[in-house]
C-alpha cells in the first residue's frame, strides 16, 4: 500500500553559509493511510519544523537541504506550485497550534469556512455556507448558522479550535497534520478536542500526524509514535510498546518526567541535564564547531 506520507532522510537547515544550523538531520518517517502517529519531543526537537516542511510553510531562512517528502507516492518537493496548492487544504490539511490567531480576525466564521469550500469544491456561495453549517454541527457546535455570522473574537478558544478542526476535515483529506492543537487550550477543552479529532478521523479515514510534547495525549489517541530529539528520530514503534518498554534512555527520561495521577509528585524526575548534554553533544557538537568556523 502506498503510504499517506513518506519522508526519507529529510534534512532542514536554518540560516545560510557558515552560520547554517541543522534543525532536522536525516529524518525518515512513514505514515500509512488512516494511521495516527504521535510525533513527540521537547521544544526545539524539530517536530513542528517537520510538519511545516510537509506543508511548505518553512520560515524564509529555512531550507530543505536533502531528503524526500512524498504524499501518496507523489513527491511534494518536486511538485509544481499550482499542483501543490491544489493538494493543500483538500488532500493535506493542518490543524494549527493556536486557535486564537489562526482565524482571520476581521472575517466572519462563515466567510472563512466558505472560502475553503469554494476554493476547492467550486461550490456556490449558498451551498458553501450550508455545507459550512453542517461541518460546524459535525464538530458539536450548537446553533451553527448563528456561529457562521460571528467574528472569531466573539467565540471561545475551544470553539475556534473546533472551527479549525472542522475546516481541516472539510474536504475529506487523507493526511492531517495536527500541530500541537491542544497546547493553547485548557485541560477540559483539550479532552473534547482530542475526542473530536479521533471521531472525525475515523469518519473521514484520514491519516493524522499528531505533533505534541504531551505523552499523555499520544497514549490516548496515537497507535504509533515517533520520538524526535535534536532533529533526529530516536525511537519509533507502536505506542503501547514504546511507552511500556522504551528502548532509548531519552525516551525513558521523557516518560519519567511526565506527571501522573497515580504517582506522588516527588516521583517526578526531570530529564537529567547530563543525559541531555550527552545527547546534545553527540548530535550537535560537530555542527556547532562547524558553525563557529575556524577559531
Amino acid at each position, binding site marked *: 500500500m502506498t503510504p499517506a506520507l513518506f519522508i526519507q532522510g529529510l534534512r532542514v537547515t536554518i540560516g545560510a553559509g557558515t552560520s547554517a544550523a541543522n534543525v532536522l538531520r536525516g529524518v525518515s518517517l512513514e505514515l500509512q493511510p488512516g494511521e495516527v502517529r504521535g510525533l513527540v519531543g521537547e521544544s526545539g526537537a524539530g517536530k513542528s519544523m517537520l510538519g511545516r516542511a510537509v*506543508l*511548505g*510553510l518553512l520560515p*524564509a531562512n529555512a531550507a530543505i537541504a536533502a531528503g524526500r517528502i512524498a504524499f501518496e507516492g507523489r513527491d511534494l518537493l518536486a511538485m509544481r506550485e*499550482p499542483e501543490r*496548492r*491544489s*493538494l*493543500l*487544504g*483538500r488532500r493535506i*490539511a*493542518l490543524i*494549527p*497550534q*493556536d486557535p486564537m*490567531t*489562526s*482565524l*482571520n*480576525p*476581521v*472575517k466572519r466564521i462563515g466567510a472563512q469556512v466558505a*472560502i*475553503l469550500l469554494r*476554493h*476547492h469544491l467550486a461550490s456556490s456561495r449558498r451551498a458553501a455556507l450550508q455545507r459550512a453549517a453542517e461541518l460546524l454541527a459535525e464538530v*458539536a*457546535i*450548537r*446553533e451553527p448558522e*448563528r*456561529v457562521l*455570522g*460571528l*467574528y472569531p*473574537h*466573539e*467565540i*471561545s478558544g*475551544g*470553539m475556534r479550535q*473546533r472551527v*479549525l478542526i472542522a*475546516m481541516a476535515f472539510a474536504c475529506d483529506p487523507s493526511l492531517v497534520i495536527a500541530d500541537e492543537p491542544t497546547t493553547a487550550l485548557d485541560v*477540559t*477543552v483539550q479532552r*473534547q478536542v482530542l475526542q473530536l479529532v479521533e471521531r472525525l478521523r475515523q469518519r473521514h479515514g484520514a491519516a493524522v500526524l499528531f505533533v505534541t510534547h504531551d505523552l499523555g495525549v499520544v497514549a490516548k489517541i496515537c497507535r504509533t509514535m515517533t520520538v524526535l530529539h535534536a532533529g533526529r528520530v530516536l525511537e519509533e514503534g507502536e505506542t503501547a510498546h514504546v511507552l511500556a518498554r522504551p528502548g532509548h534512555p531519552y525516551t525513558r527520561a521523557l516518560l519519567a518526567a511526565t506527571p501522573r495521577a497515580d504517582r506522588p509528585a516527588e516521583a517526578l524526575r526531570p530529564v537529567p541535564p547530563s543525559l541531555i548534554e550527552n545527547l546534545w553533544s553527540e548530535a550537535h557538537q560537530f555542527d556547532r564547531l562547524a558553525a563557529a568556523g575556524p577559531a
Partner: protein
Amino acid sequence: MVDLAHDLSVGHSSRLVAGLKRGGARLWIGVALVGILLLVSLLAPLIAPHDPIEQDLMSAQLPPAWINGGEPAYPFGTDSLGRCVLSRLIYSARTAVVVALIAASLAAVIGIAFGLIAGSFGGWVDQLTSRLIDVWMAFPPVLLSIVLAAVIGAGLTSVIAAIVVVDWTRFARVVRAETMTQLRRDYAAAARVIGLSRGGIMWLEILPNLVPLTVTLLAVEMGIAILVEVILSFVGISVAGDTPTWGGMIAEGRQIVHQAPWIMALPIGCIILSVIGFNLLGDGLRLLLDPVQRR
C-alpha cells in the same frame, strides 16, 4: 461534555452600537465637520447668497454684518472687489472637497497596490519599490507639486495629479509595512495551508485587515490634500483665476490684512476646521472599524 456553544457574546445590532461608542466624541465631531463641509459644497448654489464672482465695487471691503458698517446682504462682508465673502467661502469648499476626494482616493489606490506588491513579494521587488519610495520622498512635496503644476499647466486636473503623484508614497509605505506584519500572523499561514494563491491571500485575507488602517489614512490624506490645494492656490498655480479657492482668498486678503482682516481670517478658519474634521473622522473610524482592539 461542557457546552461551549453558550459562550457567545454580543449579537449583530449591538456590534454597531459598540463600534459607535468606541468611536466616541472624536467620531461625532469629525462626522459633523466633514458632513457640514460636504453638504455646503454640494448645496453651494442653493445656500450662497450671491454669485461668488459677481463684483460690486460700490460696496467693496464691507465688514461682516455684525460689525458697525456691515450690511445684512453680505453676512461676512465683501472683499476688495466687492464680492461676497460668504459666497466665495462656500464655493471654495467645492473646489477643496473635489480635490480632497478624488486626489486622496487615487493616491490610496496607487499606494495600496504598490504597498501590497512590495509587502507580499519581498526580496528585490520590495527593495526596488522601497528605494523608489525613498527617493520620491526625498523631494520636498510642495516644491514637487509646484513644478508639476507648472509643467502640466494650472487647473483642477493638475492639482489632483500633483497631489496623487506626491502622496501615493504615504499609502505605499504604511501598507507595505502592515502587509508584512499581517503575513507573519498565523491566519496568513493558515490561508496558505488551505491552498490559496498569493493573490488570493492578498485579496481575501490581508486586504480586509488593512481596511481600518487605510480608511484612517484616507481621511487624514483628504485633510492633507486640502492643505496642498490651499498652498497651490495661494501661490496661484491651482484652478483658473476666477474660481474661488480658500488659498486664493488668503492671497488676496493678505494685501489688505490691516484694513480688512476678515477676508484672510475666514478662509483660514475654514481650512482649519476642515482639516481637523478629516483627522478626527479618521481617528474615530479607526476605532469604529477595529473589531477587536488588536494592538
